């Protein structure tokens, strides 16, 4: 393959990789928190009705 067709690869420095990892963890925590929040809203709003099943 001719070398001029190869896309240049962007190399991240170790510091940048560390920050990317930190950002990923922060996003994971935020998504996890959203799951907990929406679960809590559902449980509190529905209350005992959560066990009602349609006939």
């Amino acid at each position: 393959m001719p070398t001029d067709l190869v896309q240049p690869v962007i190399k991240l420095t170790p510091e940048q990789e560390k920050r990317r990892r930190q950002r990923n963890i922060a996003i994971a925590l935020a998504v996890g928190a959203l799951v907990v929040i929406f679960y809590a809203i559902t449980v509190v709003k529905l209350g005992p009705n959560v066990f009602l099943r349609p006939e």
Partner: protein
Amino acid sequence: MSLISETDLGLAEYGAAPVDFLALLKPRVMSLVVFTAVAGLLLAPVPLNPVLGFISILAIAIGAGASGALNMWYDADIDRLMARTATRPVPSGRMTGNEALAFGLVLSCFSVMTLGLAANWLAAGLLAFTILYYVVVYTMWLKRKTPQNIVIGGAAGALPPMVGYAAATGSLSLSSLVLFAIIFVWTPPHFWSLALVKSADYGRAGVPMAPNVWGPDATRKQILAYAILLAPLGMAPWLLGFAGPAYGLVSALGGIGMICGCFMVYRNREGDRAKKIAMRNFGFSILYLFALFAVLVAERIVAISTGALI
């Protein structure tokens, strides 16, 4: 050769840490928003479920943070010119403007939707209005146009107690309107005391703050006028009967303190002493507002826990 350069992808600045995103939320402003929103929420005659109350306050806090992020996205050009703001994530180059914009928009949408689901859609609508007002009316329009910027823009900072009250009750009331009015009238003497000290900074950035446009002496007169209006207004919750005697006492003493502090600012106009007094007044104004809401919250908690309030 690639058609897209590193800068197009924003990869040149590929290095913002989570702490930079946290800084976009203006945590110090956020803490005051949380505090005043809790006061509004506790003022409600009907108690909100504590879990829903906690989620509502969280949503209001994130909404306020989102408006801070959008403000920093739009104002990066002038923030760069002022010593107080040059180290913010966007002007310092740790993050691109687009990252701040996307972050602010996503948080705005999520906070409004979450508040709507957890509490009600009046509160969510008010929160959306607060964000829009702060970003569009204050940041994009008034801030660079008129020395009344912080007076009119102050409404955005004054809304959280009304959002908190609306979250609990699904309605508005005189009591939440009074809390709004207190913060609204408190903002000008608070902000202008800082602007008197930092007027060179604002001048360099071309922001038409009152001391730069009207001159420091006219601003001092305005600061005193607002303080005289603020002192009795601060006592209104007690006079109208929705706060107790402890609040009455603290608001009376605090109001006298505010008038005295602003009078000192009015009298001392020259040199370092004037700057020191203005800066002290800025600090005292924060303490004053904090004390008012702290007593209001404490009184409500006592009333709720002793069963005096149903």
